[in-house]
């Protein structure tokens, strides 16, 4: 939730309460308020298809409320009838008569005027890894394997820091351009990429280190079918980096983001 927007809506409602406005204004306020909350109030925006469903429901509910008793009906219809019948509103009425179809037309225009977008493919972001891969002629077991330097974390912290620092060097020489300074997928090349690079803050805690190693070493070309369509720009780093450098980079990713890798599961008994 975006706190400022939620607060702003709450304050606006408080103000309306304080002013003791009429039911008609309340109804409009609820509709607009909920729309603003749904449209702008969430950090991960809600797709417009869902907003349409919700606003449809809200519209029906508000209509039901304002017409659910004689007093409320009068309170709603009174101002509307006055607006439509009294002489002093004639000009405004004329404006409204023109504005309503104009708004509808504008809506049609906006809906038709969408930018061109590529078709949508559903892809699995983290497809299953193969049981083993071969990097630099060495077979690496992804199911049972471990980061060869992870054990240093407890046994030899100094040596471990060294590996992490080496990982930092590897990262800032190679990865930073896409994955970004803060590892939140905001590097300088990001605007040209689709799908966007991985945001390491979000996902790596659910993954095993060997999974990261697989993705780094084999890159986009090594993705299985369900990870497709093959359009990620991730290079296969095994062609540029040593095996140790890649393991170090993995250490650094977890170290920098403060995440812990997912432990090994008893695969055989699953």
């Amino acid at each position: 939730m975006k706190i400022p927007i939620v607060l702003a809506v709450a304050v606006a409602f408080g103000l309306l309460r304080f002013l003791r406005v009429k039911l008609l204004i309340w109804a409009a306020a609820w509709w607009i308020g909920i729309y603003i909350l749904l449209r702008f109030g969430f950090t991960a925006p809600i797709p417009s298809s869902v907003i349409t469903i919700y606003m449809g429901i809200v519209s029906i509910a508000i209509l039901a409320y304002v017409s659910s008793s004689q007093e409320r009906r009068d309170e709603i219809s009174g101002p509307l009838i006055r607006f439509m019948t009294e002489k002093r509103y004639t000009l405004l009425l004329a404006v409204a008569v023109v504005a309503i179809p104009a708004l509808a037309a504008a809506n049609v225009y906006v809906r038709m005027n969408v930018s061109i977008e590529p078709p949508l493919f559903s892809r699995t972001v983290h497809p299953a890894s193969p049981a083993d891969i071969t990097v630099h002629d060495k077979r690496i077991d992804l199911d049972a394997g471990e980061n060869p330097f992870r054990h240093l974390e407890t046994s030899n912290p100094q040596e471990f820091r060294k590996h992490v620092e080496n990982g930092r060097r590897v990262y800032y020489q190679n990865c930073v351009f896409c994955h970004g300074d803060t590892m939140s997928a905001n590097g300088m090349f990001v605007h040209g990429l689709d799908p966007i690079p991985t945001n390491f803050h979000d996902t790596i805690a659910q993954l095993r280190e060997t999974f990261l190693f697989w993705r780094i070493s084999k890159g986009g070309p090594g993705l299985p079918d369900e990870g497709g369509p093959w359009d990620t720009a991730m290079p296969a780093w095994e062609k540029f980096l040593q095996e140790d450098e890649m393991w170090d980079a993995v250490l650094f990713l977890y170290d920098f983001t403060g995440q812990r890798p997912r432990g090994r599961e008893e695969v055989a008994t699953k």
Partner: protein
Amino acid sequence: MTVPLIARIGALVLATTAFYGYVGQMVPQKEVQPPAEVVLKSDLTTADMVKVGREIMEGKGLCLTCHTIGKSGALRFPDLAGVDGRAKSRVAGLSDVEYFAQSMYEPWAFIVPGFNPGMPPINKPPVGLTDQEILCVIAYLQTLGGTPTVTLQTKHHYNSGTTAAPPSQGVSPGGTQPEAPLKGEKR
């Protein structure tokens, strides 16, 4: 003059129906074609079988309606990622091919711990894959965490009697008729 009652009610009925009809147009529109009858060539290579097997799993076999590949969390059916590694050792005395065959011909013979039995026999209707098609599916399953070894001539417990592959006619190299909409959907 007021609007006559019957016209009002008619308008209400018409509007309500039209509204629901409109809601029906707003959801994704997908037409599902019945699975096409596909004839498999008898000389498919193992690599071709993998491709065909994958297509069968998505389409006619309906496998991926329930099973996932590479998903974790609360699942209703076993995930198939890396399944070959598990299939080799899961039931003592069964090779991976035998194990896969058993789980398709007699799915309730062995239930993966933690799951409920729910899979229908794949060689019987409504899914009703042929023996050859099941071999292709096995070939694909072997690529998940292993390397495929089966061919269309592979024997296992359930097809030991039959050897004859269906005649090959008018079949593309992939083993499927090119115009057959295997995925069974169009927009």
